[in-house]
């Protein structure tokens, strides 16, 4: 008599090795026609059933519309069959140490859940308004806050920045949530940036308007009145500078103090501040051919900002031979006057900004919805399923409960970023060993061959998505066959028998209220 356990093991082996399970028809000499019970432990006969292949096909569909694909990444679980791309995000659960800011920003990783963690980056990595933070300020400290889609919020405590790298600590996040992290970098303005601010101020319509207003109001008045008007204009200029800084993502830690300091500094340099644009206006007059001294067309010359113009004159000595002889010295004087005014204005601005601390805020709003989560999906070891199985030979549809044990921890959603992108990982995220019980018949069979209605089931599960799974395997039961002619009892009555089954099921632990069952408390 064949050993039932041995045949069961053989069936599992075949299910795994073929990838598509063959129908396992136990045969103890009977034909094993559909609907006929056969004894466990007989010869296996592939019948060409392609149920597991069908399941795989269904999974491809799931992968194609997977969350990862929706993120715009290269689709680790998409139609590539799970081979994925190394640029696709990975769950940080298997990587130790701090998370790199650039990896997070470029969606190469997702954040761990259930545990505090750190984010580290370089000051040159952070961009504010398209410019590297390090070109705007010299960061001295970083802090911030964060908020997750599930309502979790937290503060990032102040962390000093000694060099060019920074590090912050975040608290616990919940799985499968999206997070917006706001980083606030504080420090004085970078000296190289002040000239850029001055140049922007000179070209700002509000500044131009303020200077015209000054000229209109003060022109022809006594010096004292003109100085009073200049003080008002300086405050306007200070507001323009503050707005420029803000447009670059920088806000003063103390706006009132900065406005006062800046207003005073600009007022002290009102001559150069006002004269820079007047100098440029004179230099642009075609009669003096100053554009020619730089080898530029007048149209191109006139487009240059104050800083660009200063840079041009300093980068290359102007060729004053291009200017008419009797105006040559005048053109040179005017160029030198412009450079002097520009430097003095910049010096005034620097003194006004000196000592003032600015905060540059960079918001990392990764994950505007649940589909673009940045926190790792829940990592689970097992699931508990309920579903219906179909047994061909018994011609029965039976309810069943299964415990699915994964080959290591997997994401709650098969499409979530895995720890790594490989074909094997793609398969591992979806397959599970299944054990459980088949219960009563739900197809209305009046003459079940299963003694006591209950049977042990085992097999392999394949997840289609977070909730649904196809399971195929063997159903072991003790049989009760109807009495033969003359009331003779079948000799196989009471023996263990086996049938192949396939059926869909729902992962009950995929439901949000129950999803932490069989799962990791934290992702790393």
């Amino acid at each position: 008599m064949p050993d039932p356990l041995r045949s069961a093991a053989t069936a599992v082996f075949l299910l795994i090795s073929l990838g598509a399970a063959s129908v396992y028809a136990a045969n103890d000499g009977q034909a094993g026609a559909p609907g006929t019970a056969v004894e466990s432990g007989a010869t296996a006969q592939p019948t060409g059933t392609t149920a597991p292949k069908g399941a795989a096909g269904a999974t491809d569909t799931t992968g194609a519309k997977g969350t990862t694909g929706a993120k715009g990444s290269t689709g680790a679980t998409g139609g590539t069959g799970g081979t994925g791309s190394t640029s696709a995000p990975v769950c940080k659960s298997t990587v130790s140490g701090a998370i790199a800011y650039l990896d997070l920003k470029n969606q190469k990783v997702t954040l761990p859940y259930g545990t505090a963690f750190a984010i580290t980056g370089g000051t040159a990595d952070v961009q504010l308004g398209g410019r590297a933070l390090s070109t705007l300020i010299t960061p001295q400290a970083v802090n911030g806050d964060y908020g997750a889609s599930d309502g979790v919020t937290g503060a990032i405590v102040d962390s000093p920045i000694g060099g060019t790298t920074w590090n912050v600590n975040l608290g616990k996040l919940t799985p499968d949530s999206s997070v917006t992290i706001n980083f606030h970098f504080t420090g004085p303005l970078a000296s190289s940036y002040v000239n850029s601010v001055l140049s922007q101020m000179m070209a700002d319509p509000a500044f131009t308007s303020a200077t015209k207003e000054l000229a209109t109001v003060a022109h022809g008045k006594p010096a004292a009145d003109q100085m009073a008007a200049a003080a008002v204009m300086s405050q306007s200029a200070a507001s323009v500078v503050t707005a420029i800084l803000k447009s670059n993502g920088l806000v003063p830690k103390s706006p009132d103090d900065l406005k006062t300091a800046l207003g005073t500094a600009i007022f002290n340099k009102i001559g150069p501040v006002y004269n820079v644009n007047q100098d440029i206006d004179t230099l642009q007059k075609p009669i003096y051919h100053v554009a020619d001294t730089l080898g530029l067309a007048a149209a191109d010359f006139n487009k240059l900002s104050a800083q660009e113009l200063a840079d041009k004159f300093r980068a290359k000595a102007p060729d004053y031979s291009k200017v008419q002889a009797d105006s040559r010295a005048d053109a040179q004087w005017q160029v030198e006057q412009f450079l002097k005014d520009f430097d003095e204005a910049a010096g005034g601005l620097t003194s006004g900004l000196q000592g003032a601390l600015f905060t540059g805020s960079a918001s990392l709003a990764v994950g505007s919805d649940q589909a673009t989560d940045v926190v790792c999906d829940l990592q689970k070891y097992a699931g508990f399923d309920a579903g219906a199985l179909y047994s061909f030979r018994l011609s029965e549809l039976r309810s069943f409960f299964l415990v699915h044990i994964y080959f290591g921890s997997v994401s709650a959603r098969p499409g979530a970023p895995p720890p790594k992108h490989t074909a094997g990982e793609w398969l591992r995220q979806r397959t599970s060993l299944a054990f459980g019980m088949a219960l009563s018949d739900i197809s209305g069979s009046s003459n079940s061959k299963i003694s006591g209605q209950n049977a042990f089931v085992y097999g392999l599960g394949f997840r289609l998505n977070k909730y649904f799974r196809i399971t195929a395997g063997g159903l072991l039961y003790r049989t009760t066959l109807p009495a033969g002619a003359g009331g003779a009892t079948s000799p196989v009555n009471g023996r263990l028998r086996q049938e192949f089954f396939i059926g869909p099921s729902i992962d009950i632990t995929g439901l949000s209220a129950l999803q932490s069952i069989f799962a990791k408390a934290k992702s790393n």
Partner: protein
Amino acid sequence: MIAGFIRLQSVINKDGTKTVSVRATEDATGGTETITFEIIDQTIPVKVTFAPNATETVSVNHTATGEGFVTVTAANSPQSIQRWLNVNKPSDP
């Protein structure tokens, strides 16, 4: 007609008198031009005769003090030049 002004500057002379000067360029017509200096709160017009296309230094003495606008304009010409100057100091670059 005046075709352009350049190099508007304040000068303190050795004897302590204060001067504002500008370089003015005449166009091809030539002739006498009326050039007006507004030095803070003082207005000083001067007449200067230019040869065609000539560039001349035009200067005036003044008694204005302190900081403020110095503007030079020419009659019958859209050209002007203006700077904020401290006329108590020379304004060499």
